[in-house]
């Protein structure tokens, strides 16, 4: 596998990841997504307090050539955003699961995590998508 797919987070079909920490979910973009986008040059973050809805656009990630929506993996209220990305959007490229996290949400319904993909499912999904 040429993409880093880590344990401890769950993945969406749009290549976001979410990690549950108590009632808070940390949200970011997967290594596969950052690789496909190329060097990220701009991130538009949601305001703290924004209600995000699973599957709906919640932030905007831009590389030189493309504009990509970051779709919320689960419903919730934004509690914190990664302001380091405003000056260093490339953190998403260099450390997508760490310093490149995008925002945190207070999760409404933890059962939504069951619908997201675990590592084996996401690995399979990425392989299939890459072949297209």
């Amino acid at each position, binding site marked *: 596998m040429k993409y880093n797919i880590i344990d401890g987070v769950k993945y969406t079909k749009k290549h976001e990841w979410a990690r549950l920490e108590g009632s808070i979910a940390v949200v970011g973009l997967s290594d596969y997504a950052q690789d496909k986008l*190329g*060097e990220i*040059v701009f991130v*538009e973050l949601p305001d703290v307090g924004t209600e995000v809805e699973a599957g709906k656009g919640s932030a*905007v990630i831009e590389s*030189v050539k493309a504009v990509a929506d970051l779709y919320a993996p689960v419903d919730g209220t934004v509690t914190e955003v990664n302001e380091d990305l405003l000056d260093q959007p490339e953190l998403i490229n260099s450390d997508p699961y760490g310093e490149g996290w995008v925002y945190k949400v207070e999760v409404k319904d933890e059962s939504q995590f069951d619908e997201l993909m675990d590592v084996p499912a996401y690995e399979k999904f990425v392989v299939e998508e890459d072949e297209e």
Partner: protein
Amino acid sequence: MSEAKKTPFYEKHVALEGKIVDYSGWLLPVQYQKGLVEEVHDTRNRAVIFDVSHMGEVSVEGKDAEEFLQKILVNDISRLKDNAIIYSPVCYPDGGVVDDILIYRINEENFFLVVNAANTDKDYAWFEENVFGDVKLQNLSPEYAQIALQGPNSEAILQQLTDTPLGEMKNYHFLPSVNIAGVDCIVSRTGYTGEDGFEVYCKNQGASKLWDAVWEAGQKHELSPAGLGARDVLRLEAAMPLYGHELSKELTPLQARLDRFVALDKTVNFNGQAALKKQREEGMNRMLYGLEMLERGVPREGYPVKVGDQEIGWVSSGSKSPTLDKFIAMAFLDPVIADQSQELELVIRNRSYRARITKLPFYRRKKK
């Protein structure tokens, strides 16, 4: 739409793991493994090879070839010498642009035109519609492959493959028959990146051999492949117009500030002359400007530009400039308001971002 075409270099792109996209009906690499940003740096600092076989080529021959071209071109080719090249927009009678093209003069009765890929068929139909006298038109596009070798190391790379002294070749000049590694090529000192470089044309059957020879010769000069993504950013940094963005049926060359390529006083009548003269006298409500963002935000085609509450134009091309490490754009703006505005606002997804007007081109290479 018919199935996308492969250029003679398609297999090379696949072998180099280029990311292939359909561009105006051609399967071409948008970028390679290093990525767009590195490809831009490589072009500015070393050398890159682009497949530009999608570009169209048209031969214009005959006793009336020059007179015909003088009628369809807005630039004046009467002083163009053999082996020299001139850039010119081609206009409709209303001043809107059919295409912007290069004219290679082989001799007074033989010209080689290079046209935009997406416009090739439209251009050829337009030429046929306007042709007269002793002129033979031929669409050579299907027969020709083309590479662009761009960047400061280009001459050193290409010189290894030919006895023709390339150092003597001036900008916007060409040689119609150069032996490059055993392949008969048209070689011109031209490009679409703002760097020194060459564009090399050959018949399809020699294409693979040409690519391999250039690639091999390039290894000691850090040659890399570059894709369409880098090409678009490079031309934006150099403020070169792209048809469909800075030029179109609805935009004239004067609006795009291509005045030095518009010979309004040419002694023979040409398509668009009256309309362009009128526009020059009356002025224009939208003209091309360079913009630089004063805060982080990626300007992209179509984004509105405002001063206060008033919308004064739109972005025609925009990107992050890897060379300048700035966010830049070309935009068509109301000149009356733009010229007296210290600051403008660019609207990205309903939010305003501060920008200012800056001189074009954004990037100009240092002369040796």
